[in-house]
């Protein structure tokens, strides 16, 4: 299997605890989800309550990764 490691995300992944600014950045970064009811984008940070800002729906879907997904065909 050759898994293409996305270049965009590797910097954030190897966050150094000493680099305070980037650390906060990486952990407080909002990840966007899709609302299960109204289909809108929901930006959530760590520890935030799970609900859609727009309609209050309680099920959110994670979006498909924008990293390239490539598998070896066998």
């Amino acid at each position, binding site marked *: *299997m050759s*898994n293409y*490691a996305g270049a965009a*995300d*590797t910097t*954030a*992944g*190897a*966050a*150094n*605890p000493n680099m305070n600014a980037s*650390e*906060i950045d*990486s*952990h407080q*970064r909002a*990840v966007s*989800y899709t609302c*299960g009811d109204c289909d809108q984008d929901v930006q*959530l940070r*760590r*520890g*935030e*309550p*799970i*609900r859609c800002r727009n*309609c*209050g*729906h*309680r*099920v*959110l*879907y*994670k*979006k*498909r*990764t924008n*990293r390239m*997904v490539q*598998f070896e065909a066998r």
Partner: protein
Amino acid sequence: MAPSTDTTWSTDFDTVRRQKLFQSPPKDRTAYPRLAEAVEPHIESFNAIWEQGGQLHQALKDIGTKVFLDGDPYAPPEEPRNRLYIRIQDVFLDKPVLPPSNKFVLKDRRVLPSESRETHRTYKGKMTARIQWKINNGDWQEQVRDLGYVPIMLRSSRCHLEKMSPAQLANAKEETEEFGGYFIVNGIEKIIRMLSVTRRNYPLAIKRSAFTNRGPGFTPLGIIIRSVRPDGTSQTNALHYLNDGNINFRFSWRKAEYLVPVMMILSALVETSDIEIFQGIVGKASSEGLSERQFVIDRVELLLRTYKVYNLQSKARSRAYLGEKFKPVLQLPEDMSDEDAGSYFLRKVVLPHLGANNVTDREDTDKFRMLLFMIRKLYALVEGDAAIDNPDALQFQEALLGGQLYGMILKEKLEEWLNSLRFPLQEWGRKQTWKPFTSHQFQTDFVSRVLARATGEDIGKAMSYFLSTGNLVSPTGLDLSQTAGFTVVAEKLNFYRFISHFRMIHRGAFFAQLKTTTVRKLLPESWGFVCPIHTPDGAPCGLLNHLSHTCRIATRAVDASAIPRLVAGLGVSSQASALLENSMVVQLDGRVLGYCSPKQASRIHDTLRYWKVQGSPEKSVPRELELGLVPHSNGGTYPGLYMFSGASRFYRPVKYLPLQKLDYVGPFEQPYMSIACTDPEIVSGDSTHVEYEPTDILSIVANQTPFSNYNQSPRNMYQCQMGKQTMGTPGTALSYRTDNKTYRLQTGQTPIVRPPLHNEYGLDNFPQGTNAVVAVISYTGYDMDDAMILNKSAHERGFGYGSIYKTKICDLEEGRGGRSRKVQKLFGFSPIGTVKASWREKLDDDGLPRVGTMLQNGDYLAAWHTVSFDQGTGELENLDGQTNFFKYKDDELAFVEEVRVIGAENGLEPLQKLSIKLRIPRAAVIGDKFSSRHGQKGVASQKWPQVDLPFSESGIQPDVIINPHAFPSRMTIGMFIESMAGKAGALHGLAIDSTPFKFDEQSQTAVDFFGEQLKKAGYNYYGNEPLYSGITGTELSCDIFIGVVYYQRLRHMVNDKYQVRTTGPINSLTGQPIKGRKRGGGIRVGEMERDALLAHGTAFLLQDRLFNCSDYTKTTLCRSCGSFLSTTPTVNEFTRKKRGGLTVRCRRCAKLADNTAPKSDVWTDGQGIRRYGGDDIAVVAVPGVLKYLDTELAGMGIRLRYSVDR
């Protein structure tokens, strides 16, 4: 308005029409009403609980008012005690909505079933009760109490989906054809199975040897009646015949049995006299044949004489006697009078179907007359005038529907709740030094100290428990023979399986343990109601049946109030005459309307039947009424005209010949009717009815087997099984489902050969197979023994390609329970710890898996860390810097399909629960199981390259090759016909009607019909074709039968089954391999396998299996004393470890070393004791368990001694 959606279907493909239905679901009604009809009994029985005057209202009436007394219960009674009356006035059930704690949603507060499914929660609505109480004769006070959240049936009157159109359903994330009928409990779809129980309100003549165990004098003969109250709960009454001719009345109350002389009940019911009872049992004094009835006269005389012992002359005294005896059993208040208690006993226990609350004298008379009838029947049974009734026959059975059971449990929980007030009341009294209820203190304390402390107020929890486990927790047992297994998971493996859950009816778990097979037999009484072929083979065979697709079940009683008047108008007399052949009883729902002659009875029956089918409003005989005329016969079933209008009855449509109109028949009346199967079979002057279709007797699934009438019948049974194990399309709203495991076939097709019912039930929405070109030929040898060869290119084009979807739940709240509501863990990487790059391969910024990534065993599913609430910052902070992970632990490669982030219902909590849907690709591989629709299953044995497969003159190459030996012994001729029909259909572009019983030998055979079609298309009449070898290109020496057959891929796949190991995990005690495929264990070589190896003389193989690959252990043994246990490694005093390994000595044979011992022979044991000798040690290989056995025996003081040669 647009024209309403067409609901008529034919066999045709209707591709465009279905496409349109799918693209824009209809906004008015479903195009497949038959589907909704199939589950109607479930939904309607649930609705019947809640409607005005429905089951629950009747239940509340039956529960009535509970009375509690104040004061010290152990104190001597001095002055009258105060009474607290309490009753439930009303119970309400709301539709599922968000809890009030959620302040974020303003518009649409509904909770839809899809949300419950996705969040793995329960689809439940809030239940409240208005209760009223008063003290002595004060004013009623009332309060509304919260009873918790109870699960709600989908598409019932309490569900948001109730009247939704397909378009609305699609918007609600449901199937367009969602029909409900099940519950969602913890995200799992649960259904209450239908259960067959004894027919209500009909006295059954029973012979059961167990009756003799009740006591001395008891005979096996008895009459049993399952009397059903208006609220659907039942009370079984039985009459036992004793050796001396006496009769005992038996009933169960709170799981305990009681016996009462029947005469006591008779005299307590009404003010009666001996002569009245005598004439009621034997017959009118003036009637003819009285002299021949000496047998009964003797026994009635005895009955009357023996009762004189009790010396209870009047109704009042009999009631008081009964009341005195049963007051404690019935949990009645201490200060109730004996006579009232007796009346209460009669109301609750004796034939409650004839009057269960506010019993009038008239109703008591009804009970009296019914009891007399039962005695008459019992004596007739003893005398041999009447035969025993078979309780296993469908004739004497009805269905206990899910909703009814739900309502019964609800009633019981409500009653238990009221009863449970006794303890908090007593507790209050004890603490308040037995203050009276009239005191001010009680006024203030009642709600907070008594009501609030009643156990069993959370009825929602009890109902959820029932639905999720199927266990019935009940003090009364609800008159049922089992306490577990009422609910099953409505698996959506494929659509056949799903719909079958709603049509199945179980005989009861009790009967599953019976060693006799009588209960499992297919009886002729079942004709048309229960499918003769759709039952599993194996343990539940014949106990788990499926209803025929036309069979319906009454969910409510029909209005039969006009019947007594009509019957009276047609002429019945109130009293029976002496001879059985002169007095046919006329009953309506277990109430004696009168007696008449057989001629008269059949006239009443015929007239009522005519009126019932005619449906004239002035007569108002409902069409669903069952009119069972049991004719007089010589020692047959006890004759009479029995009418039934109640709920739970089976009934099915047939055509009434005199009017050529629809009539409904039930299983009770059917055996005495003449119903022709087809039009030519109608016998003029005899047949009264004719079936609409001969296939009406088959279940939905059994109907889908093409040309099933040409198959040997067990093959059709197998197909019903396999159809339900097929990988198909479980639904169209798959992306909103989170089943633990679902199977999906990617390349489903509509079958070319199918009956019109396929379309009527909308089965093309859920395809579960592929039309395959099948050649019946023994080609390479790889199709031996039910194996089939797959065309490799067909496989590569997607034949049989499927996937499995699994849902993994990552719950941080697991184990936290309900104790602390504090958040202790959060998803994501620890903010203060390092995040390794390798973690990020599968996980995103938020610590959740990336959608679309591939997972393998051991990969991370999600990251989490512990947190605690920081008062200063007001935030959740991680202190340890540790990141923990949920792991993917399955062996198979999977892809992350969906990640669902689930919030709490109140919308306040951070992420605590994650639902990850994984897709496991499952292309067909060698060893996977396939089957045609004729019980012809086989495994794929080889994927044969297309170039090497035989080809026909038109260039067609088979997708599948099966061996001709699959046919002679199995006789699945239907498969040949399907093959020809499929070929003809494919050639002409037609969908072929495969309804069984369409062809016969007289007019045109199926072979001729499809043969002609093949001939028209330029093919061989019999479906044979010359094939050319794919390898040599020469024509095969004989023509090969090749056609198109619909193939199903079954869910049994080698990837879930293969089990191999050389070495692996072992049991730590015995050293033998552990069992279980999941844990990498071995397959047991058992006794029989061992015998086979012995018989073959394969000693080395035996040694390898049983020893080398199992618990091979090298061990040391002392030659001189022959013991494993005494050998011990020596410890060198000076060097820590010597080269050349440890020396082992026997401690038992060694002697303590003194100074005389030679220094070179002295050794030291583990405790530092110096010894010498004991050096006659051998190393042997033994099974590990042998050592274990030795130690165990040593523990018992038994020594094993091994003699070692060499």
